[in-house]
């Protein structure tokens, strides 16, 4: 199914990135301003930019491209601003409030805070209607469903002009018939509303998670539907004969029609393609354990791939809403170039999470910002060129940076300017290291077994210092780092998750057959769906996960396995995989205890051919790329060292630089501290290695 071009479009909050891969292996990045109110506008502008700079017309491009789009901000913004659809819930009587009770918990960090508000309800209480019906934990029907209750709810929804409806009952995963019948009534009475059915969207045990996931989906689906429709129509008007694929937060692509139905899968897809891109970029080094860090203006995203597979999260709170479906684990911190340094009530230096954003921005932007930020510290330390960012298009004011740091940090803490700036740099790095621990140590991985991958424009200034702090001794930074996520999309596969509840003990009778039967059923559905997308069997790949625990535990460890036949013998390897995972995570296992499965899932992947890898022409030595020197700080005593500066665009494959050095590119700066050295590879990736 290969096409001549492959075009990835990543609609971010500020910029929409376009990444174009050509048949000769050349890959180009284009950036235009995002147009959140009319997303096709930015796409139009981007295509014009491509025509101007690459000489390919929009029609030529679209008719010969595989198209991959990331609609991340559409759903995300609706959830952040609470501008989703008017949503009603039909649920088991007595359980109308589970999504407002939220397990009775107030988030940590706000224990005594009198101002912290409760989460906004996606469906207000008067639109949450209970019906008489009840299935119990054994799967038996205790109370049959009263259809009149469902009809009464529909009447109310009609009167209230509800746009989206959820049907979610207790234990519906063990007996979906009640939900299915209620859904029929809703379709019949409210043919125009969007409908989400709990056990269909997320067939897993846990009522609160399932209902909440369904509500988020219902709240966003009409919006995604509109967005996907507009995009598809626009590209069809340009002559696209293949459907556009959209990127999902599970790390794979899906057709627009699926994304519109399963909007919750599109929710945080922006950074979710990073592990994919990282794995591809690291392939020439055979690295499969990769932590990717992406630092932008206000936030810092961390993702992790272990043995080539990305960390997945299930059943987490995202923007204060519980979401069950598997999402690539993205740890997002309020730590970016704009993060503000301040001294807290206790007198401790802190960085962020408040950010100066791009308006007024860091003090050194000279746009009226007076608070010291990470970027100001980096400028004072000599990491950034005073000539500015983005190839000189944004000038930086060294005096304003110094003054802000001096008055707000250095003087109150009685430190020199350099020590204060280095302190800010250290604290922001420390915040990032704690975030990296959350995706690694808390998931049972030792970060020292990983290579660090840089993404985003601001990461390069921090990356060697971060690696020092975590104990990582190799770093990779692609020349495409500033558009890494868009790049990740064009090398991603189509991916769907199919789930089923499986409450079986591994020592119970016939369990191997039951599990195999469940997986067969899921994978049959998955193969069918991919066949409709045009995939043939040889391009389809399946992985399985089982949520397992010791009998009596309530939280599961997710164990990932390949799709082998489950028999009484191979069951042993499942058990072993679980014990090992428990031990990795919690420092003990209980080999004598019985194990049970709770939920299972098959991930069905439709493989797409990869585009050609980027090629870098051979260089003639780094000396020719040297542009001068600066006085740069690399230690907490604030001492300045004369440090050579290099122009990255003049380096070629094989060129080598020893730290200390600063390497400048148009959209990024790499600071090589004295303990590091760097080589540019023939696939246009900087490899940084710690000396000795």
């Amino acid at each position, binding site marked *: 199914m290969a096409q001549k071009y492959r075009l990835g479009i990543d609609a971010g909050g500020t910029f929409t990135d376009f990444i174009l891969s050509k048949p000769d292996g050349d890959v180009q990045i284009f950036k235009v301003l995002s147009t959140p109110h009319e997303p096709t506008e930015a796409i139009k502008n981007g295509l014009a930019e491509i025509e101007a700079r690459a000489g390919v017309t929009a029609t030529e491009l679209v008719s010969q491209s595989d198209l991959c789009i990331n609609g991340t901000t559409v759903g995300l913004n609706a959830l952040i601003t609470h501008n989703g659809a008017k949503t009603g819930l039909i649920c088991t009587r007595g359980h109308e409030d589970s999504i407002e009770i939220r397990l009775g918990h*107030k988030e940590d960090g706000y224990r005594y805070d009198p101002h912290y508000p409760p989460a906004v309800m996606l469906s207000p209480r008067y639109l949450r209607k209970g019906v008489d019906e009840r299935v119990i934990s054994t799967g038996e029907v205790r109370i049959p469903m009263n259809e009149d209750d469902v009809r009464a709810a529909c009447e109310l929804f009609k009167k209230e002009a509800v746009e989206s409806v959820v049907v979610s009952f207790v234990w519906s995963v063990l007996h979906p018939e009640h939900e299915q019948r209620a859904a029929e009534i809703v379709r019949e009475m409210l043919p125009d509303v969007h409908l989400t059915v709990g056990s269909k969207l997320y067939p897993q045990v846990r009522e609160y998670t399932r209902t909440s996931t369904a509500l988020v989906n219902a709240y966003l689906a009409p919006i995604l539907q509109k967005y996907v429709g507009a995009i598809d129509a626009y590209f069809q008007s340009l002559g696209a004969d293949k459907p556009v694929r959209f990127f999902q937060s599970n790390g794979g692509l899906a057709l627009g029609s699926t994304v519109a139905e399963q909007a919750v899968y599109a929710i945080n897809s922006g950074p979710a393609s990073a592990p994919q891109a990282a794995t591809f970029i690291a392939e020439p080094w055979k690295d499969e354990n990769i932590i990717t860090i992406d630092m932008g203006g206000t936030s810092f995203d961390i993702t992790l791939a272990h043995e080539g597979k990305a960390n997945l999260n299930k059943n987490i709170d995202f923007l204060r809403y519980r979401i069950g479906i598997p999402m690539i684990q993205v740890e997002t911190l309020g730590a970016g170039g704009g993060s503000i340094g301040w001294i807290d009530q206790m007198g401790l230096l802190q960085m962020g999470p408040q950010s100066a954003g791009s308006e007024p921005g860091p003090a050194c932007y000279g746009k009226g910002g007076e608070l010291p930020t990470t970027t100001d510290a980096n400028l004072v330390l000599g990491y950034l060129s005073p000539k500015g960012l983005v190839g000189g298009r944004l000038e930086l004011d060294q005096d304003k940076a110094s003054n802000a740091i001096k008055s707000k940090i250095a003087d109150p*803490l009685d430190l020199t300017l350099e020590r204060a700036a280095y302190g800010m740099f250290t604290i922001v790095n420390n915040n990032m290291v704690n975030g990296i621990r959350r995706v690694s140590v*808390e998931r049972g991985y030792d970060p020292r077994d990983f290579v660090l991958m840089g993404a985003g424009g601001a990461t390069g200034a921090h990356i060697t210092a971060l690696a020092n702090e975590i104990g990582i001794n190799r770093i990779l930074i692609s020349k495409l780092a500033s558009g890494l996520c868009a790049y990740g999309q064009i090398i991603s596969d189509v991916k769907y998750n199919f789930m089923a509840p499986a409450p079986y003990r591994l020592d119970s009778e016939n369990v191997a057959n039951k599990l195999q039967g469940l997986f067969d059923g899921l994978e049959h559905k998955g193969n069918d769906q991919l066949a409709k997308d045009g995939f043939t069997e040889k391009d389809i790949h399946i992985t399985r996960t089982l949520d397992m625990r010791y009998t*009596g535990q309530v939280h599961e460890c997710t164990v990932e396995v390949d799709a082998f036949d489950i028999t009484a013998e191979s069951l042993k390897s499942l058990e072993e995989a679980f014990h090992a995972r428990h031990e990795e995570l919690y420092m003990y296992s209980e080999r004598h205890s019985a194990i049970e499965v709770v939920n299972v899932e098959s991930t069905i992947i439709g493989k797409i051919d990869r585009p050609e890898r980027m090629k870098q022409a051979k260089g003639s030595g780094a000396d020719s790329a040297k542009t001068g020197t600066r006085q740069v700080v690399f230690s907490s005593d604030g001492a300045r060292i004369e440090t050579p500066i290099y122009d990255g665009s003049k380096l070629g494959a094989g060129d080598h630089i020893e730290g200390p050095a600063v390497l400048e590119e148009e959209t990024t700066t790499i600071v090589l501290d004295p303990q590091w050295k760097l080589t540019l590879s023939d696939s246009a990736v900087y490899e940084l290695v710690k000396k000795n």
Partner: protein
Amino acid sequence: MSYSGKDIDPITLSVVRGVLETTQREMTLTLEKTARSSVFNLAHDYSTALFNHEPEMILQGQDIPIHLGSLIPAMKAVDKFFEGQISEGDLVLHNDPDYAGSHIIDTCMYYPVFYKGELVFWTVCKGHLTDIGGPVPAGYNPAATEIYAEGLRIPPIKIWDKGVPRDDILNMLFTNMRARRDQEGDFNALIGACKVGARNLIGLLDKYGKEVVQDCIDELLAMAENHMRSMIKQVPDGTYNGMAILEDAGHGFGDMEITAEVTIKDDNCHIKIDSPPQIPYFINSYEGNSYSGVYLGLMMFAQLPPPYNEGLYRCISVDMGEKGTLCNAKSPAPHANCTTTPMETLTDAVRLAFEKAAPDKVSASWGHANGCNIAGWDTRHDEEYVTMVLASIISGAGATAEQDGWHAVGPECCFGALTSGDIEMLEYSYPIIIHRYSLMEDSGGAGKFRGGSGTCWEVEPLDKPMTMITFGEGRRIPAMGAGGAKSEFVEAKVGRLRITRDGEETIIKENVIEQILPGQKAANMNPGGGGFGNPFERDIDRILQDIKNGLVSKKGAELDYGVVFSDFDNLQVDADATQALRAKHV
């Protein structure tokens, strides 16, 4: 500049703080994810803390507040008991209130962290087990007149000796507990958490060296001290009294008064507690536990953000009153209910004294705990079950001077740190059917800012009789408002148990042990939080919104908020009549 007088690098200081917080977080995560009992893994009824060699608490987690104050004296008691006899690889277990434990069902582990042969830290966790032996499942025995009738008292003992588990001792303990498999699993979870903490702390020492780390910790303690002192300094000097009434929850000893006298002098604060003599009923609190109640009242007022450590309390002195009283009980007083009753009343008394000192700063009281434990036989697995049901104690939060109280995050003693657990998970773990878990109309205390709604938890046993043991109070006296808040429609705002047998409802407002048969239902209802400010000043639109959402009824709107309707069904308010009625109360 440093508060401890030591030469501190401010940057290293911030890093050390971050590592301590991450360490505590990873310990808590281990407990949550691996524990067996629903009280741990669904409800998060556990707490973790780090101590230095002194031992001073150097980091208090953001877990259950009612556990944390008492860990300070408990750690000191354990340290004193084993003075000079702690070796690398030891692990100490303890629950007894004579050694500053809270109630014996809360079981603590203390793991000494050695570095280069020297004791440097302790990693400590406490968790509420589902059973601790004794005559009544789950440890709450309303009939107990002595602590011996409540369960197993465990003074500080080593369950590991130089790295070797003392299996004989462990076997003796488990043999005395119900649902042994769960108890063994929960011990493993506590041990795992202690080890995870130790691993991280050793990493920190490796990186910076012992002296730098200790200096930073001393500075963090001194900073917390300074933080609290600056806050206390803003309170006008003087002596302030708070008195709260503890209702008779069925013991027959009548209502009791608990008084807190708070004296502020410059940046010091002395809190003197006065409570009646202890009684032969399970609501006596030993001194260690009472510290938690006093500190919670203080923190409700101080409203300080994290990090928390023992430095916060250096300028606070507490006199818990005479030995042998309700809040300073002595052996053999029964005490199983003490973490909620009388602690929440003690917390209220302290909070109220601070309200008098600085009326604008306080929050209203949260709903008190009034919950149940259940036990019986699970025919699905042919085994016994027993548990405290934390989903049955979820009450409303108090309103603050800025906003309505949160729904369903109480009780006060847990302050939002609990989680009640997914109902499917509860039904999977225990043979029960939860018919209702919902907010309750008119349960939030009236006020310019309304208290949060309490919850109703209604259960039916699956196929065998179930024993239900209730505890707590707050079934007659509603959560106390602040800033002039007052409720008229009180009966909707208090807790109660409603049992439905053959269509007949019985309301019970005392602590009881009841048998519930299949086909019968028991609904445990929890109070809402107190309101803040005069309810007759509450915005009419917000009241109408509450009515639309079923949180306030017509009766509630009329009685509590002075709203007169011209047409209730269409939510039409008679503006003139309302204004006239309200004017009388403003």
